[in-house]
């Protein structure tokens, strides 16, 4: 009973709020005669979105694929380096300045450099940018996770004369999974954002970023917003999938 009540509140309340905001937005645009280049109404954006659904879909697929490739590569590299750094702490100390530097520079600023390296006709540069953006949170969170293993569990594995691989599989990895997935969840949004922003700096056309800029530069503001809506949806899909994975792997854990 209570469960139904809370889930109804969790689903219905935000839905009602969303509808109310959209209605107010539409009302404001009509009543105050706001020009489309300032802010088009939701009806116009929806019209463009569904009218160009094929184009939005193709653009989302291009950007989404770049983000996915970056996410997978960055995540693998992040977990791998975190494993090495956990085994040899000296590696962590040596790489700390580099990781700090990577964490503070805006990765997309590298886009023009990478475009000249890999050619403006290839998607490689965008995938690399997404991968670098993903690497940092995955690496930092995984490393933190690997250090969360409880001493009693570590001693238990020592007492059982367990091999390194057995210890990793039975204790280290399960202990650090929640941390790795926190990193992945942050990284999933970063992957989409980085892949999309990287398109602003050049490279082949067809992705969401390029579509937004070209629609805006041809004064088709409602269409630009339709692509923005597409970007939001791609970001949401990435976030939801990683969140779902996180919930799945931690289903047998006490909620912190």
């Amino acid at each position, binding site marked *: 009973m209570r469960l139904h009540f809370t889930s109804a509140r969790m689903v219905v309340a935000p839905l009602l709020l969303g509808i109310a905001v959209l209605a107010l937005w539409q009302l404001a645009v009509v009543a105050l005669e706001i020009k489309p280049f300032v802010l088009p109404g939701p009806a116009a954006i929806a019209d463009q979105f569904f009218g160009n659904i094929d184009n939005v879909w193709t653009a989302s697929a291009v950007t989404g694929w770049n983000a996915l490739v970056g996410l997978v590569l960055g995540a693998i590299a992040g977990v791998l380096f975190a494993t090495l750094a956990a085994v040899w702490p000296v590696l962590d100390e040596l790489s700390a300045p580099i990781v700090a530097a990577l964490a503070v520079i805006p990765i997309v600023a590298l886009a023009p450099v990478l475009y000249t390296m890999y050619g403006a006709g290839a998607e490689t540069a965008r995938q690399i940018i997404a991968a670098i953006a993903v690497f940092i949170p995955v690496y930092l969170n995984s490393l933190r996770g690997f250090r969360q293993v*409880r001493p*009693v*569990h570590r*001693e*238990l594995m*020592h*007492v*059982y*004369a*367990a091999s390194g691989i*057995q210890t990793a599989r*039975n*204790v280290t990895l*399960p202990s650090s999974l929640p941390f790795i997935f926190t990193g992945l969840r942050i990284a999933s949004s970063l992957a989409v954002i980085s892949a999309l922003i990287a398109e602003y700096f050049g490279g082949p056309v067809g992705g969401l970023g390029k579509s937004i800029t070209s629609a805006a530069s041809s004064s088709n503001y409602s269409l630009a917003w339709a692509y923005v809506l597409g970007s939001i949806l791609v970001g949401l899909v990435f976030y939801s999938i990683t969140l779902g994975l996180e919930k799945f792997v931690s289903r*047998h*854990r*006490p909620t912190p």
Partner: protein
Amino acid sequence: MTRKDSLPVTDAHAVKVTGVSRIFSIKKKPPVTALESVDLTVAPGEFVSLIGPSGCGKSTLLRLIADLDQPTAGTIEVFGKTARKARIDQDYGIAFQQAGLLPWRTVRANIELPLELHKVGTAERRSRSTELLELVGLGDFGDSYPDQLSGGMQQRVAIARALAESPNLLLMDEPFGALDEMTRERMQNELIRICAETRAAVVFVTHSIPEAVFLSDRVVVMSPRPGRIRSVLPIRLGGPDDRSEHIREDAAFFDGVSAVRESLHGTPDTGNARGVDTR
């Protein structure tokens, strides 16, 4: 799984500690002598408690026997082997103050963990864990997760896990330390029963005088700074069949408690609050 019948004929000791010292050197601080020339032997099937105030080195001694730490001087033999060899051969089971269960594994999977690590087949694992769940009275909880269990139940799972490979030696570091008094006494009764059934030797670290007296064949009283054995007191409360709940009201039990307390405090016991827990 049958009991290991690998007791060496040449050496009748379960544990033999000879002249063991352990000095902890911490940077920029004077070294701490946790143990100083400690000698102790534990016979197969014998229950020995280590008792003493904090810092007397009782946990350190247990960790040395378990090969979780190495002595600065002296030797430790477990069933005639080095502590390291005994650990690798899995000659002992261990239970810590924290149950230390893996929260992502079911109770049954936790008990099966050591068997799984040592490549015991699925069917054998299953039958052994069923047996152990019954032994610790958790037959209906095999599919539960540790966080669904009370502290006492978790500790029982940890004991079942320690017994999984039928060790001839059980090392226990204050396993009931975090439990309430009632649960604690019930767990002590169960431990007596389990030990009678498995015939394992036990080295048991505790803070509690009544607990040490109730469980042990011998109580080793230790003193701190540096950690030394002050005295070894034999306790004669009879075999496991006699050692039921009523023994806690028995004169022999109170005598044992007084003797351990006198040895701990170094003065005769004058108080009339006999049997009161002075942990």
